[in-house]
């Protein structure tokens, strides 16, 4: 057992559900007790999703424990099949079904005898993998399932497209800024003369999956999810892939150089023409992205030598570290990630860029490290934002886990050239701004006088609060206390009440209409 207050990556089934519900017309049935369908709330709230989340629970209760789910899972699959005719039903294990050792494969086999939808059990071990690993695995499983089937049926078309094309793998629901990132990645590829043939899993249709191998290569923008699918496609279908995340100017340039290489392999065969992206990169860096000029501008001088601490998933933490150090001249005291399974690669990425590397899933360890380093700014998850609040250090959020405010309706990509602009803003705004930074120190703060009163009611002489009422009013939440007190006093005056008791307070509340 482990004493835990907070976790960065969720349990395995969340990853499976995120992937399944990102595909079009795929339904997930989780095998779980009442209340474990909280994923629906998360998706509906933090993604502000307009449609019903295609996830149902096959509820595990006492009866199920006594005699096994037997018919229940099968009935639920058949019922969903009739109601909504999904293309695929993913039977999702949870910790509960893992412990009760239900044979999901068997249920699924039996259910698919009678249902028109395909059904597969997610092959995920609850106790060994986290949300991200499970998502990676489930995505590979679904793709493998459909590609293998197409191959068996002989419908697999392996001829590459006439024009250069790529699949983007790993964009899915509840991913940090994934929707914006997807649009920007498409633009980046489009401007490089590469058409995007499919984006998976977000919004992807299963019937087109068989055409995946027709693309020239795969792009995996995030290391956490999609790599397994990409390596599988490379091994089985000879599709090359790039896993460089185009975040920041140099990473984006690397990304484009990499796709240039991948494209030219085919281009030289198909059209005997080599594509050259040097000019494109130069122009974009100079004129579309403001980040290069921004970090050169006099404004950014203030940032030089300031120290930052970084924590997040492997992709974002590594990219932001690179940007801060190489592109903005900021010192990175520590860079960390909670993706323990990807620690080796993370170490390699940030090697030589930061003073120390912390790979941990324990937020208190991160908090302690930050408190010790005392950086001028933190870049991390929501957890680091709150750590920052507590020790009074500003924080920019760069990675999940996040709250709803990090699903902005406005366009906020991280990758590509527009991404560099967004990141520059985020970084600049997170540090205390230049003059603001100096002035209060030099002049001893903005407000040198003690503020005499915070109370909204100034004339309290003629009205007396009994101690009982005072203590009662202290129970009112701070943000409405002032108003409530004022309302009470007005009420007391109007009714000629000389002394305010708890009774009077509540009477005032009952009478008052806002």
């Amino acid at each position, binding site marked *: *057992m*482990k*004493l*835990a*207050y*907070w*976790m960065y990556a*969720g*349990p395995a*089934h*969340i990853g499976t559900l995120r992937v399944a519900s990102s595909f079009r017309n795929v339904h997930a049935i989780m095998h*779980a*007790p*009442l*209340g*474990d*369908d*909280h994923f*629906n*709330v998360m998706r*509906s*709230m933090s993604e*502000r*999703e*307009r*449609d*019903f*989340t295609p996830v*149902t*629970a096959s*509820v*595990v*209760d*006492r009866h199920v*424990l006594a005699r096994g789910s037997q018919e229940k899972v099968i009935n*639920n699959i058949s019922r969903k099949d009739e*109601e909504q005719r999904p293309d695929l039903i993913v039977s999702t294990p*949870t*910790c*509960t079904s893992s*412990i*009760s050792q239900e044979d999901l494969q068997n249920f699924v086999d039996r259910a698919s005898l009678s249902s028109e939808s395909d059904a597969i059990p997610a092959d995920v071990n*609850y*106790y*060994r993998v986290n949300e991200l690993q499970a998502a990676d695995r489930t995505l590979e499983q679904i793709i493998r399932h459909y590609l293998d089937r197409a191959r068996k049926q002989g419908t697999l078309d392996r001829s590459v497209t006439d024009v250069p094309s790529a699949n983007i793998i790993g964009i899915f629901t509840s991913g940090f800024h994934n929707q914006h990132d997807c649009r920007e990645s498409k633009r980046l590829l489009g401007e490089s003369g590469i058409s995007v043939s499919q984006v998976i899993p977000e919004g992807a249709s299963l019937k087109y999956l068989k055409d995946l191998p027709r693309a020239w290569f795969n792009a995996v923008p995030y290391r956490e999810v999609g790599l397994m699918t990409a390596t599988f496609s490379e091994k089985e279908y000879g599709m090359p892939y790039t896993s460089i995340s185009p975040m920041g100017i140099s990473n984006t340039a690397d990304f484009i150089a990499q796709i240039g290489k991948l494209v030219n392999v085919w281009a030289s065969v198909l059209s005997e023409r080599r594509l050259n992206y040097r000019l494109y990169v130069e122009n974009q860096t100079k004129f579309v992205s403001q980040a290069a000029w921004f970090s050169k501008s006099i404004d950014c001088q203030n940032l030089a030598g300031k120290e930052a601490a970084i924590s997040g998933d492997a992709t974002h933490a590594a990219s932001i570290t690179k940007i801060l150090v190489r592109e903005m001249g900021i010192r990175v005291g520590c860079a960390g990630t909670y993706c323990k399974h990807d620690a080796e690669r993370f170490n390699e990425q940030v090697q030589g860029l930061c003073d120390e590397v912390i790979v941990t899933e324990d937020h208190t360890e991160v908090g302690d490290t930050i408190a010790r380093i005392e950086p001028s700014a933190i870049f991390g998850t929501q*957890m680091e934002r*709150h750590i920052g*609040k507590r020790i009074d250090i500003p924080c920019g959020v760069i990675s999940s886990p996040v*709250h709803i405010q990090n699903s902005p309706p406005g366009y906020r990509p991280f990758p590509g050239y527009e991404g560099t602009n967004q990141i520059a803003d985020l970084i600049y705004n997170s540090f205390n701004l230049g003059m603001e930074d100096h002035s209060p120190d030099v002049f001893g703060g903005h407000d040198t006088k003690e503020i005499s009163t915070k109370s909204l009611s100034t004339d309290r002489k003629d009205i007396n609060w009994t101690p*009982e009422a005072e203590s*009662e009013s202290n*129970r*009112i939440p701070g943000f409405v206390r002032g108003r409530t007190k004022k309302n009470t006093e007005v009420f007391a005056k109007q009714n000629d009440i000389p002394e305010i008791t*708890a*009774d009077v307070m*509540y009477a005032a*509340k*009952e*009478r008052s*209409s806002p």
Partner: protein
Amino acid sequence: MKTLEIPTFECETGNYHTFCPISCVAWLYQKIEDSFFLVVGTKTRGYFLQNALGVMIFAEPRYAMAESEEGDISAQLNDQKELKRICLQIKNDRNPSVIIWIGTCTTEIIKMDLEGIAPKLEKQLGIPIVVARANGLDYAFTQGEDTVSAATTHRCPEYISCATNQQIEGEIESVAIGAAPNKKFFSQKGKLGKCSLVLFGSSPSSVASQLNLESKRQSISVSGWLPSQKYTELPALGQGVCVCGVNPFLSRTATTSMRRRKCQLVGAPFPIGPDGTRAWIEKICSVFDVKPDGLEERENQIWKNLKDYLGVVTGKSVFFMGDNLLEISIARFSIRCGMIVYEIGIPYMDRRYQAAELLLLQETCAKMETPMPRIVEKPDNYSQVQRMHELRPDLAITGMAHANPLEARDIDTKWSVEFTFAQIHGFTNARDALELVTRPLRRKNSSVLGCHSLSRQTVES
């Protein structure tokens, strides 16, 4: 008296969305100031809590997970040793007056003997350990509080019963004083000292003192609350104590206090809405043989103050999908406000504990001349949504999983969980309760958008 329409109960598949009952730690750790809640279970529970609690999680809450790992599940590790290690750590870090273990589905399935281990560790660590099995196998959402309260009932001190002897009455009072969260109310003696009144149900302290005041107005003093503000201040229970619930989901607590602590249960409607509050006090008064004083005027006054909100809700229809067991009371209040209730979904319906509330619902329907709504136990959310498409209610009271999708289909929704966290009890908070109900309706009035359905699904199909 004219014949009342008898309520009909239906039962569906139980495929509905609600919170896991362990969510009760969210409000209980705040209510019981010196407690520490330890949820024993897997990552799934922790992830749920951390998402459901939102911002609260960052405020160093007095709760944590004892996260079961593979070694615990396969019994390679010893449960008692593991729990001892963790509880020691908690004792050193936080020094709480009580540790409350929340058993989850995991502990149920692997049959971890929490009730057996707790007394042993309690002795070794010198700190009370209360076990509540608030799991999703058996319970829904607010029933979690019920399991915790029921488990705490056993820990209340014994009430020293002294019958009617006037001389000893003073002593009874002093016993009650020691156990009461709000000592100030005991300076005055009630007319009747022979029976002490304990209210159960966790309410914010201001709601508690409001309800205390209401009964003080009728010269009945409340001698304690379960749970109390501090674990060390639990009220005394025993023969001669009347207990009364303030929330409809506390049937286990009611049963335990009756059967195990020999208390007398006052079966009353719940003090939600002015009508409910009045009926609640009247019932308590009748038990204490007190003639209620000025209640009718008080209720009318409150209704008068609600006039502007009543204008918004009158004639509007509402559909309760059901997830927190407050549904019957809120539906009854809504009907009294002039709304039409199509369906009351509810996770679990204890017809004995809620008998008085159901009767008041019947009476209210008769009074307002509306048909009795159907009550659906263990609802099926999918079927409910289909029914809603036909009925087109003006308002759906529902969980967050359905709120946004329904809004996108032009059905106004109120998020049901807010009723659990907002102050809706008593006369004073009637306005707040209606504020919640009317918010989506008021928003609609001021909306200028022309597009009705904003769902993607319907556009495509």
